[in-house]
């Protein structure tokens, strides 16, 4: 084969990717240096780094950033540990594995809107959660109306919705475990716990890294949950970065500012991924 022109088959997708993928990505960068209101498109003008400066000096931005970081840091380890445990259990059983796998994985394929609506009804003032509390003679809890509880309530829901997803990834990793090495270790009298720590865990290191990276990317984008359950409230206690971006762009029509937030999010996720990769890689070498 000679190096030459690509076959025409690449064109249809190539055009779509260029127009609705790459171009918007670059356009967003350009917009982030502009003051842009779609209601007055002619008045848009170049403002240099003003949008970024505005974001970094804005209490709302920092508040949204902090909320998002709390969300990520609070959900990621719990989801990871639970998913790891579920995958380990799934790996141990012989019978009905496909049934349990399906039952645990299915919620991960649902629309986040559906998940959020179901939990909104569970968390409602007269919902099942409070029904249970009342049945045990406990006081009702304002799951989504209490500023201290709203974010944790959303986080709990998110953990419920994503454990199955990551358990499936970790289970796939366990399918490639070195069976003979495990057998040998058991014959040497190592306990299940020791086998898990000394052989399984190091072997799963790359999959765990993948799970952590994927979960980080997804969690930093948390939006639907907030949109359906709390709309950023009460008292902005669930105002996340992407919700902030959405409000700025489509309620206040500050398109340039919203794009600056988007690029700050992009940079933040990029930096976090690099750090995680480095830390988890060095943990791998040490193990």
């Amino acid at each position: 084969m000679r190096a030459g022109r690509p076959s025409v088959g690449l064109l249809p997708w190539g055009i779509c990717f260029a127009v609705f993928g790459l171009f918007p990505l670059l356009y967003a960068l350009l917009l982030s240096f502009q003051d842009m209101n779609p209601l007055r498109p002619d008045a848009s003008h170049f403002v240099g780094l003003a949008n970024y400066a505005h974001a970094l000096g804005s209490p709302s931005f920092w508040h949204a950033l902090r909320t998002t970081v709390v969300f990520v840091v609070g959900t990621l380890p719990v989801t990871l540990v639970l998913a790891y445990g579920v995958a380990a259990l799934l790996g141990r059983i012989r019978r009905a594995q496909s049934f349990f796998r399906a039952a645990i994985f299915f919620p991960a394929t649902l629309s986040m809107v559906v998940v959020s609506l179901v939990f909104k009804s569970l968390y409602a003032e007269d919902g099942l959660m409070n029904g249970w509390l009342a049945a045990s003679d406990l006081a009702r809890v304002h799951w989504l109306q209490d500023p201290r509880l709203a974010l944790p309530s959303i986080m709990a829901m998110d953990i419920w919705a994503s454990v199955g997803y990551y358990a499936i990834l970790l289970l796939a990793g366990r399918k490639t475990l070195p069976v003979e090495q495990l057998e040998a270790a058991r014959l040497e009298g190592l306990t299940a716990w020791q086998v898990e720590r000394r052989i399984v865990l190091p072997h799963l290191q790359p999959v765990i890294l993948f799970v952590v990276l994927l979960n980080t990317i997804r969690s930093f984008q948390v939006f639907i949950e907030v949109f359906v359950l709390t709309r950023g409230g009460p008292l902005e206690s669930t105002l996340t970065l992407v919700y902030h971006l959405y409000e700025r762009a489509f309620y206040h029509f500050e398109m340039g500012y919203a794009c600056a937030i988007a690029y700050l999010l992009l940079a933040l996720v990029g930096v976090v991924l690099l750090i995680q990769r480095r830390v988890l890689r060095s943990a791998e070498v040490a193990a």
Partner: protein
Amino acid sequence: MRAARLWPYAALSAVALLSLAPLLYMARVSLGQGSDLPISPADWLGRPFTLEHYRSLWSGGPMGRFALNSAIVSCAALPLQLLLASAAGHALARSRFIGKRATLALATAFLILPRQVTLVPLYLIMAKLGLLDTYPALILPHLADPFGVLFMSHYYQTMSAELEDAARTDGLPARTIFWRIVLPLSGPGLAVVGVNGFLTTWNSFLHPLVLTTSESMRTLPVGLALFAQSEYAVDWGALLAGSTVATLPVLVAFAIFQRQIVEGVLQGSGR
């Protein structure tokens, strides 16, 4: 069996119950009467079953329209996605050209990119093209998705090129080879791309939320989310009936293509 062998089953049963219970609860409330929520499991089971909420969804509310819009968008996007993914994937796998590595690198980078970055520009582009609030605005962004192309490129790389080479030696044009030989052999790969693409399109929320303005153009997830914020917010029966309708196609896809969905997840189709 000894207890040591049984406990993983007991633990997994609890996990499975925990992960399915909210969905059974959703279906149960949707099949109940009135707008009150059940407050205890006993209350759940005791109530009569009716299709009241589904009937009112279909006849009175806009939910039928939302479901239709979701179906139109998903059904239109799916064959286009498959065709684009196989054509471009094949081109990337079989031909060498300047910029191929760059294309692959960009497509891969796009897989992990937070999609919100392109939200505002896409809105402005669609406004400029006069496509806001139309079906093309809801379909076109999905056609740019690189997952299918990367997956099919990898699929064709692991597929022998012998048949295609023989056909080329016989003088068949490239187009005939693609339609008659490559596509019929692409089934297993396209099943993975198709089911994951369908789930992404069907569940898609942020872009349809922003790219539609009139109620009659809303998709099911957007319609449900906005319905939940309206004055009907207390009508849980109707809301959860709509949620159940949004879940059924996912359930069917899951029942048939679970293996392919998992395969897609493992290859990074994650939304």
